[in-house]
């Protein structure tokens, strides 16, 4: 019975795979007019890197909702408390500690660098946040502590929602001034994007860190 089910699954997935390959090979694509539209509007977007322009200006609303998605997991995890958080156990590994002493400050610098160059080259809030979260993981592994003790989960809440809150605030402001949602004035777009991205870096780093057990 079970073997039959397995064979059926394998056969079904083979059919799916063939159908997908057929589709992928035969799709006739149109002219790349959307990419041209992106380069055409790039000058008004406040940044010079097209991917950042799409993420934080042209399709910023997607990014806003995505940050909300990112918020769900830490919130649910907080709502389902495990009985006792495992006591932090510092690994007394001198190599790891030496590594952390060098790598963590470097990661901090790298995160700031990634955040700032996002406007003109590959980088931005998501990459910076991932590096920052990685640094926190390393710190935790090496020393058994990462965030300062006073930053309890309850007190992390404002930091966790900072990025989304900034995003919303800019959106409300643009609406209340009679414009479109998240419609930045071109002169201010660069600054607005940097402010939002800075908040996002901190919040996303914390959210990613909180996914870790």
């Amino acid at each position, binding site marked *: 019975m079970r073997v039959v089910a397995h064979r059926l699954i394998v056969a079904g997935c083979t059919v799916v795979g063939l159908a997908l390959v057929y589709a992928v090979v035969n799709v006739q694509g149109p002219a790349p007019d959307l990419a041209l539209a992106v380069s055409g509007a790039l000058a008004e977007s406040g940044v010079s890197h097209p*991917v950042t322009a799409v993420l934080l200006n042209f399709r910023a609303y997607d990014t806003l909702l995505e940050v909300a998605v990112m918020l769900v997991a830490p919130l649910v995890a907080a709502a389902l408390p495990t009985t006792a958080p495992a006591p932090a156990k510092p690994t007394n590994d001198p190599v790891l500690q030496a590594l952390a002493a060098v790598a963590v400050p470097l990661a901090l610098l790298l995160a700031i660098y990634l955040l700032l160059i996002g406007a003109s080259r*590959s*980088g*931005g809030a*998501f*990459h910076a946040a*991932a*590096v920052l*979260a*990685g640094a926190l*993981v390393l710190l935790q592994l090496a020393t058994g502590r990462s965030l300062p003790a006073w930053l309890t989960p309850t007190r992390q809440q404002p930091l966790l929602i900072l990025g989304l809150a900034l995003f919303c605030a800019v959106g409300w402001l643009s609406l209340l001034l009679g414009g479109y949602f998240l419609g930045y004035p071109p002169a201010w777009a660069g600054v607005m994007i940097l402010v939002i991205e800075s908040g996002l870096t901190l919040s996303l780093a914390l959210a*990613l860190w909180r*996914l*870790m*057990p």
Partner: protein
Amino acid sequence: MSLWLDLLLIVALLWIAAGALFSRQLFRAVVLFIVFGLLLALAWARQAAADVALAEAAIGAGLTGALLLDAAGRFRRVRGGKDAGGSP
């Protein structure tokens, strides 16, 4: 020349993915998944998608890999004493 490199990368991607998906040992599967993430980052870089390559390496391979590694260790002994990972 570069076409061969792409072809090699594609074969490696599929090969490593098969290992990550169907390896008998859970731990090995997770490690292969991390390797897959790094190869995928390489594939993004080959396709001139630098932003995606960076994110894939940091988030796809790094953070997801770390999460899965922890989980593999945590859930290796399933209730009832059976070893779900299948490792000896």
